[in-house]
């Protein structure tokens, strides 16, 4: 069978030539990658959530191994995992300031007026496009749980009064809820920032209380007692200058007649509302 042998020789020979070429090219173009990158990458949660500000867990591993980023910048990993990465790399874990998503509205159905009944698509985005959603306050939480659906980590559950409750232990500060909320009510803040204005209503004066009992009326009492410049009420709602947050005291909260400004230690609400029965089940 000379024809068969011929074919084997030709194909085999060509294969050999290319194999040698690839082997040489591989030697010539070989790039050293740190094997630790792959190992650190495996130690990360692989959520690729982007909360660290990098495109994904592999990129974070690269930067950590190079020493550009501290392991603690991964907000999804818990303290043990971060300590593990730090020990493996022999670096300092870095200062981990736990950041969580905070809702800037406390107007649940128990305190806020529902002016009109909304019967359209049950998503916040759709409700916001129709007459602002029927709530008496045009800035307030619509309570249709777009954020809870967006949360990859199951950290948001709806309360019985129609407000999302963030589980601070599960929250990884990835910021998906910030993007999901059509009213822009979520902010990601360090856990240590205790003082928070839980209202975005820009209407001034007591008239706003008609729409919501826990709204900021811009009375300015919180600002009077606080350190100069910490709280301003010029824009229609109290605004905290977070550059000066270290000066914050609980005085401001005590002075607030409506409870719009809160002092948070851990949980999201000063009064944690009960989870809705469907959610709790």
């Amino acid at each position, binding site marked *: 069978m000379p024809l068969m042998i011929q074919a084997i020789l030709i194909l085999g020979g060509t294969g050999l030539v290319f194999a040698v070429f690839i082997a040489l090219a591989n030697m010539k173009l070989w790039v050293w990658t740190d094997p630790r990158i792959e190992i650190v990458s495996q130690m990360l949660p692989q959520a690729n959530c982007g909360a660290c500000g990098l495109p994904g867990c592999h990129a974070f591993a690269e930067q950590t191994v190079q020493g550009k980023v501290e392991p603690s910048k991964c907000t999804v990993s818990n303290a043990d995992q971060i300590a593990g990465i730090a020990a493996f790399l022999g670096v300092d874990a870095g200062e981990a300031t736990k950041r969580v998503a905070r809702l800037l509205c406390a107007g649940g159905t128990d305190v806020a007026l529902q002016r009109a009944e909304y019967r*359209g698509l049950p998503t916040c985005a759709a409700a916001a496009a129709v007459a602002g959603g029927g709530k008496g306050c045009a800035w307030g939480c619509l309570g249709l749980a777009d954020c809870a659906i967006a949360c990859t980590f199951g950290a948001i559950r709806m309360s019985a009064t129609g407000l999302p409750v963030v589980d601070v232990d599960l929250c990884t500060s990835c910021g998906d809820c910030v993007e999901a909320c059509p009213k822009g009510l979520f902010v990601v803040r360090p856990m240590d920032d205790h003082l928070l204005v839980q209202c975005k209503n*820009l209407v001034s004066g007591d008239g706003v209380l008609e729409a919501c009992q826990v709204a900021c009326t811009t009375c300015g009492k919180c600002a009077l007692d606080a350190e100069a410049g910490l709280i301003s009420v010029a824009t229609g709602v109290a605004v905290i200058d977070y550059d000066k947050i270290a000066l914050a005291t609980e005085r401001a909260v005590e002075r607030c007649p409506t409870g719009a400004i809160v002092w948070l230690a851990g949980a999201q609400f000063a009064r944690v509302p009960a989870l809705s029965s469907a959610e709790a089940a």
Partner: protein
Amino acid sequence: MALFGFKHGVHPPEEKELTSGLPIRRMPYPEELVLPLRQHAGKEAKLCVKVGDHVERGDPIGLADGFMSVPIHASAAGVVTAIDWWPHPDGTMAQSVHLKVDKYAPQVPRPRLVPKWEGLTVEQVVQAVQNAGVVGLGGAAFPTHVKLAPPKDWSVHTLIVNGAECEPYLTSDHRTMVEYPERVHFGCRVMMQTLGVKKAVIGVERNKPDAIAALERTKPADLDITILPLTVKYPQGAEKMLIQAVTGVEVPSGKLPVTVGVVVQNVGSLAAIAEVFDTGLPLIERIVTVSGHGLKRPANLIVPVGTMLRDLLAYCDGVAVDAAEVIIGGPMMGQAQSNLAAPVVKGTTGVVVLTAAETRAEKVYPCIHCGRCLEACPIFLNPSLLGDYARVRRYDDMADLHLADCMLCGSCAYVCPSNIPLSQLFQASKVALRRAQQAQKAGAA
């Protein structure tokens, strides 16, 4: 091409007989007017009064901020009592000026606020129309002077006047054409001479024979104006559908009508142009159809801009016991209102009050792929597939399927046997897509 019509579309019940025979009457001033600074497409007007100021009827309270903006004028003499956030008919809150109306203010002779049209140059006409705060009165409130000054690189050959009024219930344009046909023609004259076009076509749906007759009767001999009866179909009054019906040309996706050489203007806006040059007063009132089976006394009214819905409805003897929903605009594209404190703005074509029976929520079933929405969509999109994508938030795929061309006419949702709220899905998707694009832009910058 269908003769003087477009393909697809739907035939919702017209319900126009409630008000189509009622003459336009003037509504008396309410106690208080609320004038939002944002009443038009483009930039919000710049506030130019302060609390305590006394203003005369027609005085500016907000000035135009750039070319894509128009001023806002006081609709009545009175005192500015507050400037604050107030519910806007679009569902948001807007900075608004509150006027305590001086109902018995004496009519003081004063110089014209808008010059006479005769003898003005093109630039002066554009300026005068902007200063008079004239916007498109068909709903979108696009500043009229911008249409009068089209980009130089396009030549306009036809002015198309939109008298279709395809939205159910609304009859304000119909009554304008019947009662003020000369104003429509005079507005036509102003626009034709300013744009330098020789030809104008007034498109009117065939269900308004009295309007067609009135326009024919008063047609000026020296102008080439054609009154074109159009097929009765929704959305015949959508800009791109109307152009297609009149010229047979389709406006390319994402392009303005001027790229096919036409400018479209609503009859109400033409009458407004005629009125401001006639009376010398800026645009401070508009014709509003107040209708619906949930309303005790439907009417076509001349309403001062800034009248709160509750005052307007009270003037019409209030709402019936079974009234359930108040809509600004028509039932197809209008905005449901959650607060009757929201004022009538320049773009408010009508206020419709629906009964509980009419607004009953229907159970939504899964899509059965019957294809009725495809046959209804006037711009030949695939609402069924778009709806599927919207539910799973695949907004980028929706953009590829030309979501941007959807004008939210609601024809797809109207015909859907499964009661899928397609139009609302698309509205929410458009907002989500815009937010995502903005976030992307902010991230890139």
